[in-house]
Every structure is written in structure tokens, then in C-alpha cells.
């Protein structure tokens, strides 16, 4: 297309990053890492506790230490899994590095009766739901589709199709409404759904349809969008020219941007949104403004599309470092506490390594058994034919 044709259809030939568009810039004037839009933050990148007029909470020492411990352990688990991929033990790994605060904050805000729909990167949320990290590895090793029972942990299996699970979340929430577990006023009964997706998925029809359905039926679903700035190589600005949290207005429910590298704010905002949904006030959109510090997956090379300066800037806003800084300033942790935690992380890493390598390859005939609740005779016949073929090699030996 010629430049003339471009201007004729009013497409800008160059675009200067604008803070309003949610682009993180090193020159962020208030040093909050907000991309220039209003953003809930309770802990600054430097680790200073600040207050928010709407979402402020008091935190117990136990809560603060649990946030820290979980983020450290999940990061270790993530690092270990990345290494396992490099050693050929996993086919691929999707790193959560950098997004721990958004996930641990959201995960802690859940009640047991809530339900979670994850993407394939929700390792921190799965951790909070009590899924053994070993059971996440099978999907990436190529031995299963994720080895946990969604009903035991109230978190569905990972979904790889971008955004598809957000509709499932809405349907699950509609089921909760029909089960009478929304808006009863009983804190042990009322439930909601937490739907995870990313900035890339925000462009998907399924995500937008889910928001239409949720709004129309007032479904108790919290849309939790981790805007990690990059959909593989494509920046968020290509998915949306307005800050993502503002999308909710068009659907008719509230939206808020939260500092996704601030575990306190992520927890506080998710807790409020879930409580709102549980009590029957309907859906809400949370945009957790964060950054994918690693590659999209272990197959990706982010140096091809983003600058080292940008990564360094976000390194400065690291979720664990800022909480650690705060906890130290409050004398809530010390070197020995950190050393103990490091030891625990080492044990987790070691257990993971051993368990990953011990995951057996599935039986070649096993796929036939999983397709249907009732195995059709013709598929059983295919299985038997293949079994006989395999057995013919054993006979030959």
C-alpha cells in the first residue's frame, strides 16, 4: 500500500508511544509503572507502602509472609521448569517470571468454593489452589493434558486456545447462579469464578462474547486480564488502543487497572471484585498491569522484538524485590528467614527435577480410552487393530 493510500484511510504512518495507550515507558513521570493510566497500587516499586482510597486493606503479618513465600517458591518452580526444558525433559515451558504478584495476589483472594479458569501460564494461581507443580508438568512434557482433577481443586485444566476458557468461566458462573450459590449472604456458600486471560486474548471474540454474556446474565465472574505487555511479539497497543480495563465500560460493568507487580494491590482488588461477584453484583474486569520478564515460551526469542532497556525498567519493578524490601523495612523478615525459604525452594526444585524425569510416557493405546465416556465399538476395533500391530513386533523379536 502506498503512503498516499495509507493516509487516505486515515492510518497513522508512525505512532509515538502514548502513556494513555498503556505503553510502559521508562520516563513514567510518577515512577508507579502505571503506563500513565489510573492504577491501584499499595506498594511502590521501591517497596514503600502507599494507600488507595478504594481498595486499601490492612494485612496481617501471616498474609504478608505467605505472599512472599508463595512468590519465591513459584519463581523457583518456574525457573526449575525452564531449566528442565533446556535439559530436554520438557518439550516447552511457558514462564510466569515477572507475573508472580498478579497471580499470587489473585490466588489468595479466592475462597475454596470459587472456581478458576486458567490459561497455560497460571502456575502461581494453580499453586494457590493446591495443585502440585509436578502435575502441571505433564502437559509441557507431553505425557498428559495436565494431571489434576478440576473438581478437587476448583481450578480447570490449562487451556491453550487463546481466550476460549473465558467463555467457560462465564458458563460455570451461570451454573453457580442456577445452583443458588450467589448472593445468599452466607460467606461459606457464595461463590464466583475467576477467569484468566492476557492482553492478546482481549482481542479474541470469545473473550468479548464472554463479557456480553456475563453482563446480560449478571454472572458472578471476575475477568482477570494480565496485561504483560506482549502477545509473543505483538505489543498490547496492537490489541487495544485504549487501556484494557476501560473495555468493561462498553459491556456495562466496572473495570480497574491494578499494579500487577504489587501483590498487595492485586490481592486487594481481586478480593473486592470476587466479593462483589459472589454477592450478586455481577461481573468486573481487572487489568493487572505487569510484564512478562521471560520469553513467551522457551521457543521464543524476545530480543527480536523488545529492547533490553525496557526489560531493565521492569526489572526495577520486580514483584518479589519490592515486597522483600517492604518486609525488611518493617523488620518482618531477616536473613535467616530468607535462608530458610531458599532452602525450601531448593527442596522444591530438587523434588520437581526428580519427579519430572520420573513421569512415565503414556501407554500408546491409552488415547483410545479417553476420547469418550462410552467407547464406541468401532473405536475399540481401531485400538485392537493397533494393539495387534504393536504386538506383531514383539512376536518378531
Amino acid at each position, binding site marked *: 500500500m502506498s503512503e498516499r493510500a495509507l493516509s487516505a484511510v486515515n492510518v497513522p504512518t508512525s505512532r509515538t508511544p502514548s502513556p494513555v495507550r498503556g505503553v510502559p515507558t521508562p520516563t513514567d513521570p510518577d515512577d508507579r509503572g502505571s503506563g500513565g493510566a489510573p492504577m491501584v497500587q499499595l506498594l511502590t516499586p521501591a517497596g514503600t507502602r502507599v494507600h488507595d482510597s478504594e481498595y486499601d486493606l490492612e494485612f496481617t503479618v501471616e498474609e504478608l509472609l505467605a505472599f512472599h513465600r508463595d512468590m519465591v517458591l513459584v519463581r523457583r518452580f518456574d525457573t526449575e521448569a525452564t531449566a528442565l526444558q533446556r535439559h530436554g525433559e520438557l518439550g516447552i515451558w511457558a514462564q510466569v517470571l515477572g507475573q508472580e504478584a498478579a497471580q499470587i495476589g489473585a490466588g489468595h483472594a479466592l475462597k475454596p468454593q470459587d472456581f478458576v479458569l486458567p490459561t497455560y501460564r497460571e502456575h502461581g494461581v494453580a499453586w494457590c489452589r493446591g495443585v502440585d507443580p509436578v502435575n502441571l508438568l505433564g502437559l509441557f512434557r507431553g505425557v498428559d493434558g495436565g494431571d489434576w482433577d*478440576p473438581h478437587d481443586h476448583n481450578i480447570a485444566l490449562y487451556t491453550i486456545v487463546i481466550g476460549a476458557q473465558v*467463555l467457560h468461566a462465564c458458563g460455570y458462573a451461570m451454573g453457580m447462579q442456577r445452583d443458588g450459590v450467589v448472593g445468599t449472604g452466607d460467606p461459606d456458600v457464595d461463590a464466583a*469464578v475467576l477467569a484468566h486471560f492476557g492482553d492478546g486474548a482481549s482481542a479474541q*471474540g470469545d473473550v468479548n462474547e464472554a463479557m*456480553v454474556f456475563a453482563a446480560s446474565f449478571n454472572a458472578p465472574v471476575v475477568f482477570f486480564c494480565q496485561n504483560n505487555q506482549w502477545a509473543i511479539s505483538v505489543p498490547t497497543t496492537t490489541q487495544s488502543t485504549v487501556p484494557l480495563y476501560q473495555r468493561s465500560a462498553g459491556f456495562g460493568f466496572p473495570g480497574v487497572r491494578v499494579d500487577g507487580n504489587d501483590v498487595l494491590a492485586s490481592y486487594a482488588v481481586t478480593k473486592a471484585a470476587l466479593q462483589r461477584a459472589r454477592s450478586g453484583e455481577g461481573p468486573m474486569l481487572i487489568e493487572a498491569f505487569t510484564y512478562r520478564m521471560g520469553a513467551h515460551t522457551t521457543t521464543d526469542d524476545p530480543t527480536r522484538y523488545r529492547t533490553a532497556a525496557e526489560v531493565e525498567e521492569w526489572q526495577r519493578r520486580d514483584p518479589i524485590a519490592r515486597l522483600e524490601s517492604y518486609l525488611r523495612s518493617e523488620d518482618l523478615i531477616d536473613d535467616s528467614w530468607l535462608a530458610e525459604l531458599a532452602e525450601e525452594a531448593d527442596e522444591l526444585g530438587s523434588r520437581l527435577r526428580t519427579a519430572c524425569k520420573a513421569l512415565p510416557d503414556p501407554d500408546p493405546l491409552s488415547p483410545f480410552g479417553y476420547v469418550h*465416556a462410552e467407547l464406541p465399538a468401532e473405536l475399540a476395533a481401531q485400538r485392537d487393530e493397533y494393539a495387534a500391530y504393536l504386538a506383531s513386533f514383539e512376536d518378531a523379536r
Partner: protein
Amino acid sequence: MNAAALTAVRPEATTQNVTLAKALNLGLREAMAADDKVLLMGEDVGTLGGVFRVTDGLKAEFGADRVVDTPLAESGIVGTAVGLAMRGYRPVVEIQFDGFVYPAYDQIVCQVAKMHTRSHGRVPMPMVIRIPFGGGIGAVEHHSESPEAQFIHTPGLKVVACSNPVDGYWMLQQAIACDDPVIFLEPKRQYHSGKAELDPSADPLPLFATRRVRAGDDVTVISYGPQVKTCLTAAEASAGEDGPSLDVFDLRTLSPFDLEPIFESVRRTGRAVVVHEAHRTLGPGAEVAARITEECFFSLEAPVHRVTGFDTPYPPSRIEHQWLPDLDRVLDAVDRTLAF
């Protein structure tokens, strides 16, 4: 299959003379009365009763929570049905017309069909996706299609097609009771054309079973859905002219196929003609022909012939009667297979 749920509701109903649309309506009603986890969802299924009136009166009887007028978004309908199934519901989804199913194709193929495998059976998808299919109603583009091959080709789905009111009544209840996802195809041009005696106290044929609908000796004729009627008419015409005697089958189930009765027939007749409105290439007839060749090779006197929709998009409605398989094309294929 939840057989208890089926038998629980049968009794007091008396024999009625009903259209296909009414039979399906009665079947839905029975299923909803038997199991309060059964929900209907779709565009215009509630207050209007569906554009074909298949869900007529059900919202008034069962309430808006169980007969849900959804926003106009097919992927949204099927995707939320997935979530409802995860929560323990048995959604019955109506896709308004065959050609409207494609926006939901990703959810059907990647989620509905694969959830059982992905979860090793921990998350079954007991969902029915009802699709009015086939042509012959003088409609505009996208309203007359036969997309069944897309779903037959997808592991994890079951695909069935009813061809008459009695089957419609039973097969729909059986599909709803099935713990696997079922694509349920309804021959839309027959919704209101002709009635049949429905005896709700009779014993139904199992869902995944092929039925011989007319016995004959010379050529095996295999069809399903709207073309069963065409094939029966052809068989009657042939008999009336002292022509070849046709052994006519209604497949009823397209995934899984139930082809043993077909093989038994072809071993006798040595000749087979498959008839459907779906496009020819890789249509259901291709698979049926391949399996007949595998199982009946030494009995065949002629290649399996196919009478199908052509490999063109569905034509404008003024010429659809020429595009669709009809009595003459079926008998022409019968003649050709006999002359081979």
C-alpha cells in the same frame, strides 16, 4: 447412558399423531422433566419458541433459567455451555441454522470434543448441540447446509441424524442422557411436513444404531436425515414399476457408524448406493464406501455409488431442487450400479 432417567418419565403419555417439530418438542419436555440439570440455550429458543418452534412453550413451563434466550453469538452459546457442563449441567444448545455453527466451530472442536480426553474423563461434556440441517426450504445462503462431515471427522463427538418424528422424540432424549457430546442433526424441511404416530410407551431403538427402513434384495441404499424419505420414495417407485428391489437403511448414527447391518445387506446384494445432501468429497458416503470395500470386497458386484450434494457451495434456492439428490438421481445410481 442414563437409562433410569429415560424410563422414569415414560408411562402415562398416550399415542399422538405428531410432526417432527412437535416430537422433538415433546422429547425435550420429557428430558427436562426427568432431569433438572437439563437446560436449553440458544437464539430465540425462549419466548419465541425457536424459529422452527421446536422449543415452543418450554420457557413458560420450565422458566427462563432453564430455557435461556442467549445473546446472538454462537461461540458464546457453546462456550458457556461448556462451563455449564463443567458445573454439572446438561446443556442442550440450539444452533439456529446449520450455516451458523461455524462461529462455534472452535469451541466444538477444540473444547467440547477434547475435554474428555484432556481431562482423562474427569470433565465429561454431556452436551447436545441441535442443528437444523439440509436444504429444500427456499432459503438464502447459509440456511441449507449439511456440515456433518466436519463433526464426524472430529474425534470426541458423537453425531446422529433423525429422519422422522418417532426417532426425533426418542433420539433426542437418548442424546441428552448420553454422557458424551452429541451433534444432533434435524432435517429442517421435515419439521412440519407430515406426521407420525408416536407411542411413548414403545421401546426405542438404541441411539447409536442403524435401522433397515425397507427390505429389498437387489441394491443396498444407505442414507440418513432428510434423504431417507427420498430413498424410501425411490424404493416405492422402483417396486411400483417392477424395478429393482431396494434394501433401504437409515444410518441414524454417523459417529460412531453402525455399519454391520449394511455389511450384511451388501454381502447379499453386492451393490450399494449412498445418498446424502452433504458435499461429495470426504462426505459421509466416502467413509461408508471405504468401509464397505474393506468389509465386503469379495461380495461387491459394482463400486459403491454416491448420490450427494455437489462440491459447490449450496446453490441459490431457485435451483436447489436440481442440486439436491432426488428420486430420479437415486434411481439413476441404482441403475448404474446394476449395469456395471
